[in-house]
C-alpha cells in the first residue's frame, strides 16, 4: 500500500512538473506570426508571397481573368455551375466566382499591407535604402493594381491599408469608400511606387515602367486622355525593351519583349487557367468555350489574322469542338500588361482628344500589322474609336479586357442588352452578411433587384 502511494506520488510529480511542457506543441509547417518581417531575407520573401497572392488561381492565375472575358458575351459555358450565369450577364450576388475573386484580391492587399507597414521598420544593415525602397515600391504597385481591379469590377470599395491582426473589428468592418476616393487611393499608391522604383526592365516584378503602364490604363479608365497618352508613350518609346512580336503567337507561353508585366508560374505553383480552357485531350477540363461568333471573328483573315491562334479546334466522330488556346501548360505565364495594350491606349487617348487622329490610326495599325492585317484608314473619331474597340475585342480575347471595355464605356448596355446597374458586379452576398457596413450596389438589392429588365 505504501509503495502504491509512493508510486502515485512520483507519477503526479512527474506529470505535473512536465505538464506544461508536454502540452506545448509548435507547428513545423507554419511559423508563428509574431515575428514575420524582421530582416532583409524576410522582407524579400514577404514581397514574393504578395506576387504569389496576385497569381492565386482566384486572381490572375485564373478566375479574375476568366470573369473579365466571360462577361463580355463571347463565351459559352460548358459545365454545371462555373460560368453559367456570368456568360449571360446574370450576375448573382451569391456567385462563387465573385466571392472568390473579391477574397483573393483582398488577400493580396493584406500581404502588400504587411510589406508596406513592416519593411520600413526593419533594422538590418543588409537591407540598404535602395533595396528597401525597391521592396516597398513594389508592394505599393501591387496594392494599386489590386484596388484598380476591385474598383473596375465593383466600383468604390472598402479601403484597407494596414495589416489584419484579428478576424473581428478593424479591417473586417470597413465601409465602402466613394469611387473617387477609391481611384485616389490607386493614384496615391502608384505615385508612391513611382517615387520608390527605378526605370529598369523586369517582366515578372514591378519596376517604374510597370507603374507607368498601369497608370496609363488608369488614366484611360478615368478618361484623362492627355495623361494616358503621355504614360503610354513612355513604354512605346522604349522599343528596345518593349516591342510587338510577330507572328502574333510568338509571345505565347514565353517571357519576351511583348510583355511589360506577367506572372511567373512553376511546377510547385502552377496556373490553373490552362486546364479550364483546354480540352481533355490536352489535359484540360474544358469548362467554357468561345462562342461561334468569336470563333468566326478570330478565324476571319481580315479581322483576326494571326489571332486565330487564340483558339483551336478538335474534331472527333464528326463533331467539332472549339476551345481557347492561349494557355497550354501549367508553367505558362499569365499576362497582366502587354505592349500591344499601350498602343491601343494611346490610339484611344489620341482619338478622344481629337488632335492627332492620324497618330491614333498609326498606333492602331501597328497592332493590326503585327496580326498580319492590312492598315485601316478611317476618317471620323467615332469610326476610329469603333475600330479600336473591335481591335481590342480580338487582340485581348483571352485576357481580362472585353467585359471591362464594355463596362467602362457603358457600351455593354446596348451591345449586351443589359440594364445600367449591371456595369458593376454585385458585392458578394457573403460579404454583405459578414460586414454590416458594406452596402450592396444599387439594383442588386432586395427582391426587386433583377426583376424588371433581365433578359
Amino acid at each position: 500500500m505504501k509503495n502504491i502511494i509512493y508510486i502515485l506520488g512520483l507519477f503526479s510529480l512527474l506529470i505535473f512538473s512536465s505538464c506544461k511542457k508536454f502540452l506545448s506543441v509548435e507547428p513545423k509547417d507554419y511559423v508563428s506570426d509574431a515575428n514575420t518581417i524582421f530582416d532583409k531575407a524576410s522582407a524579400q520573401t514577404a514581397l514574393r508571397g504578395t506576387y504569389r497572392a496576385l497569381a492565386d488561381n482566384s486572381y490572375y492565375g485564373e478566375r479574375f481573368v476568366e470573369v473579365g472575358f466571360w462577361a463580355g458575351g463571347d463565351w459559352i459555358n460548358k459545365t454545371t455551375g462555373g460560368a453559367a450565369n456570368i456568360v449571360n450577364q446574370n450576375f448573382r450576388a451569391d456567385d462563387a466566382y465573385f466571392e472568390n475573386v473579391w477574397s483573393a484580391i483582398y488577400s493580396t492587399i493584406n500581404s502588400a499591407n504587411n510589406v508596406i507597414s513592416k519593411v520600413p521598420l526593419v533594422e538590418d544593415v543588409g537591407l540598404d535604402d535602395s533595396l528597401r525602397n525597391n521592396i516597398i515600391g513594389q508592394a505599393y504597385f501591387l496594392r494599386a493594381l489590386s484596388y484598380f481591379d476591385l474598383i473596375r469590377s465593383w466600383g468604390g470599395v472598402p479601403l484597407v491599408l494596414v495589416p489584419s491582426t484579428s478576424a473581428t473589428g478593424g479591417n473586417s468592418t470597413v465601409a465602402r469608400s466613394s469611387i473617387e476616393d477609391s481611384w485616389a487611393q490607386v493614384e496615391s499608391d502608384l505615385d508612391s511606387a513611382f517615387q520608390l522604383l527605378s526605370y529598369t526592365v523586369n517582366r515578372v516584378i514591378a519596376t517604374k515602367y510597370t507603374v507607368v503602364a498601369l497608370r496609363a490604363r488608369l488614366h484611360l479608365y478615368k478618361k484623362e486622355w492627355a495623361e494616358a497618352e503621355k504614360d503610354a508613350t513612355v513604354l512605346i518609346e522604349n522599343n528596345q525593351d518593349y516591342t510587338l512580336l510577330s507572328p502574333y503567337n510568338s509571345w505565347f507561353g514565353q517571357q519576351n519583349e511583348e510583355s511589360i508585366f506577367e506572372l511567373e508560374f512553376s511546377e510547385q505553383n502552377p496556373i490553373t487557367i490552362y486546364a479550364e480552357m483546354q480540352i481533355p485531350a490536352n489535359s484540360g477540363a474544358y469548362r467554357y468555350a468561345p462562342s461561334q461568333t468569336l470563333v468566326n471573328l478570330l478565324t476571319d483573315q481580315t479581322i483576326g489574322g494571326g489571332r486565330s491562334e487564340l483558339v483551336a479546334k478538335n474534331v472527333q466522330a464528326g463533331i467539332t469542338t472549339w476551345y481557347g488556346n492561349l494557355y497550354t501548360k501549367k508553367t505558362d505565364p499569365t499576362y497582366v500588361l502587354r505592349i500591344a495594350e499601350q498602343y491601343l491606349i494611346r490610339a484611344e487617348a489620341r482619338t478622344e482628344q481629337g488632335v492627332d487622329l492620324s497618330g491614333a490610326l498609326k498606333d492602331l495599325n501597328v497592332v493590326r500589322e503585327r496580326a498580319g492585317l492590312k492598315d485601316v484608314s478611317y476618317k471620323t473619331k467615332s469610326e476610329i474609336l469603333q475600330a479600336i474597340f473591335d481591335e481590342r475585342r480580338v487582340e485581348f480575347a483571352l485576357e481580362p479586357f472585353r467585359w471591362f471595355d464594355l463596362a467602362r464605356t457603358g457600351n455593354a448596355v446596348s451591345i449586351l442588352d443589359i440594364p445600367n446597374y449591371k456595369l458593376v458586379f454585385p458585392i458578394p452576398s457573403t460579404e454583405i452578411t459578414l460586414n454590416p457596413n458594406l452596402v450592396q450596389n444599387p439594383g442588386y438589392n432586395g427582391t426587386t433587384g433583377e426583376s424588371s429588365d433581365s433578359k
Partner: protein
Amino acid sequence: MKNFLIGTFLTFLLLSPYLSMAQLENEPQPHINSVLNGQVIDQRTKQPIEGATIQIKGITHSVISDKKGRFSFKTGQTLPYTLIISYVGYDTVEVIAHQSPLVVNLKESDNQLNDIVVVGYGTQSRRDLVGSISTINPSETKTLPGGSFDQQLQGKAAGVQVNAGSGIPGQDVYIRVRGTTSIYASNDPLYIIDGVFVSSGTLEQTTSITASGRKTSPIADLNPSDIENIEILKDASAVAIYGSRGANGVVIVTTKKGTYEQRPTVELNAHFGKSWVIKSREWKTTTGPEHAMLINEYYTNMGKPLPFRPVDSIINGEAGLGNPEDQPTFDRMQYLDHQGAPLFNLNLSVRGGSKDTKYYFGGGYNYEAAIWNPISFSRASLKFNVDQKISDKVSISIYNTLSATPRDQGNAGDGANGTLIESSLNIPTYLPIFSQTGEPLKWVNFDNITYLTNHVNIKSLSLHYIGNVALKVDISNHLKFQSSFGADYNSFKLDQYWGSETNIGAPPINGYAQSSHSQSTTFVNEQTLNYDNKIGLHKFGVLVGNTLQQSSLQTVIASGTNFANDSYTQISQAASQTAEQSWTKNTLASFFTRLNYNYSGKYYLEATLRADGSSKFATGHRWGYFPSIGAAWDLKGENFLKYANSISNLKLRLSYGVAGNQGGIGDFAAQGLWTSGVGYADNTGGAEQPGTKPYQLPNPNLTWEKTAQSNIGVDLGLLNNRVSFEINYYNKYTSNLLVQSQAAATTGFSTYYTNDGEIRNRGFEIAINTVNIDNNSFKWTTGFNASRNFNKIMKLATPITNFDNGRNLLIDKQGYSVYSYWVYKQLYVDPEDGTAVFQHADGTTGSAYTTSTSTDNRVIVDIAPKLFGGLTNGFSYKGFDLNVFFTYEIGNKIWNHNRMLGETGGTLGPSGRVLLATQLDRWTTPGQITDVPKLTAENYSIQQNSRFLEDGSFLRLRSVSLNYNLPESLISKVNFQTASLTFAANNLLLLTKYSGADPETNDQKGNNNIQGYDYAIPPMPRSYQLGLKITF
C-alpha cells in the same frame, strides 16, 4: 514520448517487490470419495456446451466442461450433492446429482441483467448500470458485407444513427450517437479498442487529382471476427469519464480473449459470396434520339437554330449534328458495373489457456470487390492476445492487432478529372464510346470509362498496429492498480499512375504519378487505481487515474509528370517532380476520478470528474473540467413491487454531466501563422525563390467546446423479462462551438477559428426486446428500436454557408438544424406557360430571373430523419437459426445531385451532359401539370432548386441469414465440436419513394459532417453469401 517511457519504467521498477512475491502455493491432495461424470448441453439444440462452470454447492471446487460438454468430479464429497452450473448467456441452474453419468440441460438466458457490461475503466453488471449503454453482439451482424464493424452497427442500437452511405467496402461511415453536436469539430464517436484510443479519421490525402467523395476508414482495418463485444456509451454518466473525448459518445470494442484452464479450441470460419448492382434502381438516362429531341426543343424555345439538323445544313459556320431520330444510343454503365462482384472471408483462430496463461490467436483474410469496377478491398489481419499471471496478485496482458489492408481504388466522387460517374453516367448517350477504328473517345470534359476501369491504377495499402501492454496489480481484494501503455500506429500509402490517355495525364502532362504516404501515431499511457468494497448493504467504489496521450500525423506526397511513355510509371523516372511534406501533433493530459455507491442493490449513485489539458489551445485556455453525476433506483427491489409478478424489472435512471470536444479542428487552430511555399521569381526567366505570406489569424481565446447532457431512462422487464423495454429521453446542449467562421474578406482571410454558437439535441430512444415463443424446440425473439432526435442551432452569430464549391447548398444558421440544405423553393411549374415559379421571402412569387439572389429568398430544409432504427427477428428451431433484419429511416431528405446534373434543360448544349429520363417530364403543353419546367435558360438557371431535395424515407431488408448447426451425431465422427452452415442475403428489399439509386448514398463532399448528398457514389449492393463454421 520520453515522459511515457520514464513513467512506464518507473511503474515496473516500483512494482518489482510485488513481482518478486510471486509464489506458487502447494495445494493439498484431496481424498476421493466419489466420481461423477456428466455432460452439459443446450436444451434446445442439444449441442454440447463447452466452458460451462460446474461447481459443487457449498464448497469452492469447480470444473469446466470440455469441448464435448463433458465434465467429471473426483471429490471427497459423497453423492448426492448439489451442483451449480453456469455459463455466459444461459440461465444458471442447480441440479442435485444422485448418480453418474448426469446430463444437464442449460436454457439460453432471456435475462440480460446479469450480463457484464464494459464501462469506462472497468466493468459492471447490467443490473448495476447507472449510465445509458448499448451492447452489440457482433455475431448477429458479421455476415453484412462492407468491411468495417462500425457499418455493421446500423439499426442495432437505439440512439445511434449509422449511414454506411456507400457501396464501396472499407470506406468511412457516418455515425452519430444522439445527434450532431458540432459544426466543425468532429462528430465521430471516440473509438477505444482494447484500451487504446484509435483514430477514426482517414489518412487518405486530398490532392489536386483526388475526387471529393468519401475516404478510406482506418476502422476498417480491424477484423470484425476478432471482436467479442461492442458497447456504445451514450449518456453523460457513461461518457464523462472520457471527458474531452466523450461528447459524441464512446464505442468500446473488446476483442476476444482466451480462458484460463481451457484446452485449445480451433475455430474456422469461411464465407463466400457475390454482390450485384440492383439494376432496377440504377439511374435511367435518355436515349440518343430523346436527348437530341430535348436539346432541339430547348433551342426552339430560345429562338436559336436547332443543333440536331441535317449534317449538310450549315448555319453560322456550323454543320448540323444529324436529325434526332438518327442518333444512336450507347450504354457506358456496362463498363462500370461489376455484376457478380466476389467477396470472401476466411478466419482461423485458436483460444485457450493454462492455469496462469490465457491466449487468443486469430488470423483472417477478407476480400470484397465493389460493384463498380475497378474498386476492391482486402484485408489480412493477425490478432494475438495474451494474459499472463505472474503471481496471485500481479498479471500482465498484451493485446496486439496487426493488419494489412490493400485496396484497389477508383475516383468515386465529384471533382477532379478521372471520376467514374462522370465518365460513364454523365456523358450524353448519343456520343460514341469508341471511334470507328476502336479508339476510345472522350466527351464533355470527362475520361473514357474503359480507360478508367482497365488502365488506371490507384492502389493503397494501410498497415495498422493497435497494441496495449497492461500491468495489473491486485494490491488487496479491494484495491487494484493498473498501468498501461498503448499505441495506435497506422501507415497509409497510396500510389497512382494516370497514363497519357487520361485527362489527368494527357499531354502536356504526359503521365501523372503520385505517391502519398501518411503515418498517424497515437501513444497513450494510463494509470488507474480502483477501490471496491462492501460494508453491510453499502457497496461503493472509487477510481482515480490519469492519461497522457499524444497524436501525430505526418504526410509526404510526391508527384511526377512528364514521363517518357506509359511504361515508365515511377516518380523517379518523371522529368519533373514535386514533393510536399506536412507534420502535425497534439497532446492531451488528463486526470479523472469516479465514485460509485449503491445501497442494497436498490439505490445507485455515481459521480465522475475529469480534467483535460489540450495542446491545441493557448495557455490559460487549455484546461477543461468535465463533471457528471448519475443516479438509479431499482424499484423491483422495493417491497411494493416485490409481489407484482408481472413486473420482473423496473429501474429508473437519471444523469447529468458535461463532456468536451476538440477533435477535428487543426492542431494549431489558436495560433496566428504564416506560411512559406509561395515562392516567386525575382527576374524574368529566373528560378523561383522562397516566399512567405499570412496563413491564419490568431485566436488566443480559443477553448473547449462543451456538451452538457441530461438523461432520464426507464428499464422495464415484464413476464419474467420475456418483454423488456429500455426508454431514454436525453437533452444535450453544446456550447462554445468550435467553428471555422467566415471572416470578412477585407481582412485578407476567408476563415478563422473561434468559439461561437450553441446546439441543442433532444430526443428519445426506445428499445424493445421480446421473447415471443420459447419452448423446447422453437424460439422466436424480436428486437426493435426507434430513435428521434431534434437538432437545433440555438445560437450562432454568423451563419456558415461555405460548402460545395460555392453552390452554398448547405447552411448552418441560428434557429435551424445543423447542416441543413439551403435552396430556392420551386413552388410549382405554371401550367399555362411552363415557367418554374419560386417562393420569395416577402410572400410573393416569381420566375428564376426575378428571384433575387439576396440570401433571404432561400428556404432552409432540415434533412435529418424524424425516426430511425432497426427491427430484428430471430427464429430458432432445433439446429436452425433464422435472422431477419430491417433498418429504416422516416422523414429524412436527400439531395439528388445526380438529378440536378441530369436535368439541365438543354442549357449545356448538345454535348454538355447527359439528360436523365426525368427530363422527359418537362412542361410542353398548356394545362400540363409537372414539376419539371419548360426548357429555357431562365427556368434552369437556379441549381439550388428545392425540386432536387427529395424524401428519402426507406425501409430496407438489410439482411436475412439462415444458420444450420449440424447435429452432433454427424460431426462427432470427424471429431468436430460444432459445425454450422450459413446462408446470408443482404439488401433484398428496399421500399422508398426516392428517385435516385439509394436513399442512403452520401458523397459527403469531403466533409464528413455533410449528410444526404447523393452523388457519384455506388449504391448499396445486393449480395448472397454461403458460410461454414467449424470448431474443434
